[in-house]
């Protein structure tokens, strides 16, 4: 098996059979944010311990990215090979909405309100062969 690493440390639990995003939760006002922050943007408290987010949620909104983004994008595509991807916000229970790539890139197959589930997917491969993985959301029960 090839070596792999998450795109950033402390973003999601990995390796894991059931990975979870890592946010923080304010002890004072219960506000949850993602990624983890050093203070609460709602009440200003600095008591914001790490918090594992729910793995499933509802698609709040979405779009597609149909042109190759400029720097600092580090996806493996070139102008010639770029085919686009979808992204959106998924509302994780009553905790927080997270911005995420979606594994389904056809907008006709995406629908606001649909159930989504966290997955970890390959993003790019480094020159030394290390696979960089990222979090994404897939339609729950879908094949991707």
């Amino acid at each position: 098996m090839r070596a792999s690493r998450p795109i950033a440390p402390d973003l999601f639990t990995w390796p894991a059979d059931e990975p979870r995003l890592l946010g923080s939760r304010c002890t004072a006002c219960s506000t949850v944010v993602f990624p983890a922050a050093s203070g609460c943007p709602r009440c200003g408290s600095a008591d914001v311990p790490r918090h594992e987010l729910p793995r499933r949620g509802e698609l709040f909104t979405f779009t597609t990215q149909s042109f190759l983004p400029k720097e600092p994008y580090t996806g493996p595509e070139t102008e010639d090979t770029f085919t686009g991807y979808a992204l959106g916000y998924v509302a994780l229970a009553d905790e927080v909405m997270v911005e995420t790539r979606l594994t389904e890139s056809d907008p006709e197959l995406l629908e606001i309100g649909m159930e989504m589930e966290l997955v970890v997917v390959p993003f790019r491969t480094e020159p030394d062969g290390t696979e960089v993985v990222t979090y994404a959301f897939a339609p729950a029960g879908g094949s991707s």
Partner: protein
Amino acid sequence: MSVAIVGIGIHPFGRFEGATGLDLGAYAVRQAIADAGITWPEVQFAFGGSLAGSLPGSDESSQADALVNQLGLTGLQFTNVHNGCATAGSTLAMGVALIESGAYDVGVCVGFDKHPRGHFNATPEQSGLPHWYGELGFMVTTQFFAMKISRYMHDHGISRETLARVAAKNFRNGALNPNAWRRKPFNEEEILESRMLNYPLTQYMFCSPDEGAAAVVLCRAERARELTDRPVHLRAVTMRTRQWGSFEVFAPWLSIERGHAPTVDAARACFEQAGVAPSEVDVAQVQDSESGAEIMHMAETGLCADGEQEEMLVAGDTEIGGRLPINTDGGLIANGEPIGASGMRQVYETVLQLRGDAGERQVPGDPKVGFTQVYGAPGVSACTLLTV
């Protein structure tokens, strides 16, 4: 409010090889002071705004007070303003405050910018975001507009055809505006069939970054008649930032609890200060970074209710001859977006309309009340209310 606009100037919007952002700004200021019938030494203060200096790849001649090298080293108080998409609105807010403080009677506010082709590529670090956020391809402002309008269409029954109607109207208006960048009309079908950039928004529904400048001369209202027999009264100018729960660009997370946009606060305060109701507006310029933004801002400003836009666009209500003309100069869709100049272009157009000088695109029936609204990163909005 006791301030009038007594002079306006604009440099056409588009692409101008060989000219710096400062060159465009100086051109607009010269036009504005000539329109007011004054000379640069009579200008007592100035606020100048430009964003390009902080955007990778944009023109570096972005420090507004360097304009004095071209306009004259008169020693006036000149303040640089750097306030996101509300930069021009912020110059006006401060210009008005300075006159109302009693410090001065006559000043200039100018906005200009010069950006490269393609989408703005801000760095995540500038916005206090982690690097991975940019690596994954989230630092693209157009995605935000697409995701906001997708949800709005779902909640309020707006069709894709109506997105195309907005762009077609703004291209039609731009074709009548000699200062606009895009002067070729496109019909709804061509707009819907142009390249999909961020679903549901196609290429011709978006504005593009470009170059341009606009300026105004502000004057204490009691003295306005000394300079012009056609003063336009700046009845209110307001600027607001995002509150908890608003849906903004470059957000790795959003709260479940949804709040309202900064435009709602800025517009409400603007109408209150002016003592004018949204229903009294005769002509409006609102931020149309893309078609969906114009639709959402119509409601956020209070000019209509959520969901009413579908019927209004079908009926042609927002056309130049309609009951509420919007973006009569073609808006951002036809003029592009030099960020620092964009809000000032709206004020320029509104003054032209209220003076009755808008030529082929003049709103009929002697409009008396004009409203402008800009919105953008990082969650800011500025509005003005103008009357004759």
